[in-house]
């Protein structure tokens, strides 16, 4: 079902998207917010630039954007998939606790902030390009992988990655000598298992964006994990 949303507001747009039983391709998208918020099924393809909070509380649907996306993509996402053929704004995957986000290009500030996990429900975000500052701030679970494959001069992550991190892991590709991590995390070379554990996601990433998995894997990787899951222990005295 092809559906032109030029000039529609977000409320009307989402009402229409919900009213269709079939997969949908949206054209003429220009900044409408909250597209597919909380949606459980369907495959939604978006041509254009969706607005903030794309796929917020997403609960199983798949969203594919042929273009860039703005801020707060996949906010508090529970399940499903978001694929961005382009770059993405700030706070992507805030408090995400399930599902996958694949970004071909770069991510803005605070990607993966406060991501969570519970037992075998582990969210994964793969950023093909580079990430802005505060990557994985307060991260409590899940996996963020940054491949650094964009041509910008930027470092693979900006300043202050992993601040307040107390769970999950971040995997960075390539040399990270110039990255300063806070004291509360431990950065070490990735083992083969670390990379193998992400092979299904990496394979899918390469399929949707048409890149060569061998080329990606044939590189050094660093895994960053927190030292403690109780960062505030010992800080308080009962009064």
């Amino acid at each position, binding site marked *: 079902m092809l559906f032109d949303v030029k000039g529609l507001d*977000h409320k009307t747009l989402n009402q229409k998207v919900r009213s269709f039983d079939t997969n949908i391709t949206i054209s003429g998208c220009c900044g409408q*917010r909250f597209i597919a918020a909380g949606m459980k099924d369907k495959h939604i393809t978006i041509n254009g630039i969706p607005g903030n909070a794309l796929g917020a509380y997403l*609960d199983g649907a798949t969203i594919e954007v042929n273009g860039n996306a703005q*801020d707060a993509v996949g906010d508090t996402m529970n399940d499903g998939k978001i694929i961005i053929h382009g770059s993405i704004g700030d706070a992507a995957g805030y408090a995400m606790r399930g599902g996958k986000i694949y970004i071909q290009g770069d991510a803005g500030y605070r990607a993966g902030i406060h991501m969570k996990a519970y037992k075998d*429900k582990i969210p994964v975000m793969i950023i093909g390009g580079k990430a802005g500052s505060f990557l994985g701030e307060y991260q409590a679970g899940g996996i963020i992988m940054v491949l650094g494959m964009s041509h910008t001069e930027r470092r693979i992550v900006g300043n202050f990655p992993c601040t307040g991190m107390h769970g999950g892991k971040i995997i960075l590709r390539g040399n990270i000598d110039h990255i300063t991590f806070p004291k509360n995390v431990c950065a070490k070379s990735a083992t083969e298992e670390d990379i193998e554990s992400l092979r299904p996601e990496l394979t899918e990433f390469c399929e949707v964006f048409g890149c060569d998995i061998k080329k990606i894997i044939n590189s050094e990787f660093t895994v960053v994990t927190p030292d403690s*899951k*109780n960062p505030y222990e010992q800080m308080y005295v009962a009064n």
Partner: protein
Amino acid sequence: MGIEFIYPEFEVIRNDKRCIACRVCERQCANEVHSYDEDNKIMLSDETKCVNCQRCVALCPTRALKIIKSDCQLRENANWQDDTIKEIYKQANSGGVLLSSMGNPKPMPVYWDKILINASQVTNPSIDPLREPMETKVFLGKKPSQVEKDENGQIICQLEPQLELSMPVMFSAMSYGSISYNAHKSLATAARHLGVLYNTGEGGLHEDFYCYGENTIVQVASGRFGVHKDYLEAGAAIEIKMGQGAKPGIGGHLPGTKIVGDVSRTRMIPEGSDAISPAPHHDIYSIEDLRQLVYSLKEATGYKKPIIVKVAAVHNIAAIASGIARSGADIIAIDGFRGGTGAAPTRIRDNVGIPIELALASVDKRLRDEGIRNNVSIVVGGSIRNAADIVKAIALGADACYIATAALLALGCHLCRTCQSGRCNWGIATQRPELVKRLNPEIGCERLVNLMNAWRHEIKELMGGMGINSIEALRGNRLMLRGIGLTDKELEILGISHAGE
């Protein structure tokens, strides 16, 4: 001992003539104050561990126990009081940030106690609630500012989503994790019996309580614990927690030791991991950003549920509330600086924020002055202690009140203010199964229903005395209030006259 020693705050007084050494006190005290001396066949007590929760006192079958404040005194003066000095010792001993529970205990003004309520005499009749119908029902949500008609002249009755409360009281947010399963169950079942709502707090909603959804407010806080589509759909309303009266400007940390079993599953974080709610929502830096979160929640739930934005009462609360009223939110909840908490840094709790009475009066005035009062309902909390506080709050402009400390007292809390320890002997602020089962949720529910029914009757009597038979007619009716012993400035902010005027 020695330089680190701090004399115990309480003494356990045991009447040996009455004590039968039945060891109930020993079994009841999770702090392990009481023990039995096998050799001498007597009970002993280690008062260094006593928090004065009164559990042993209440369960002693021969009334042999009492707890008193110790009279071992430091050489206090007006500047260096006992607790001020001991706080320094505690910090010098440990290097830790002081952490306290429940509301601000400092002798700050309680304006409710300086406000008097009017009554009818001669010129208009008072109403007897036993004889005549009195309406205590309220609806929370956006109200239309004018009547609109369709092309046929028929009134358009479509309203924005509303919450219906049988009386202007709701149980405010206390998370599963900070309080027990049985405490949550008591609140949920009581809310259903009473036709009001309780609030999940930020720890998610236990699967057993989804069936109370119509009487549930689900909360979304900066940590987004347990937030997912079904959770959002489960509640009658969704509350965005921006702040809390006991700790404005900071987040919350539930220690990993309390993240066990169901609490872990409900929050959707691993067992033993700290649950950290960051101080800000990292996607909210402006009213426009707040609007984005409000509308993302509305979109996710099909515009069927009112969105509440909860903020702490702080200095610029009127301007903040004005922004919230324009953000698309349906209800503003304001939490005053005497509000309770399971744990907050002492310095924050005791020094940050403002009294709810002043915040409420200035917010209601500001929204009326700007012509946007009908955009939102106002709910206030932060130490509402009785029916008179509620009547005064409504007359100052609130649509309803949030209560939590009072509800916990009904469940057996004795305000020992050590919730952070997780060893609540009354089964409320704990996750230890042997303690949780001490709170019977059926009895808890009944006691909450009793309390609210008593308050409802008192509210009706106070309203009847003023000649008012509907709570709607009391809202913002500041002519029904007078101040006593307040300065001109305080009266001006409260928008009331002095007694005698």
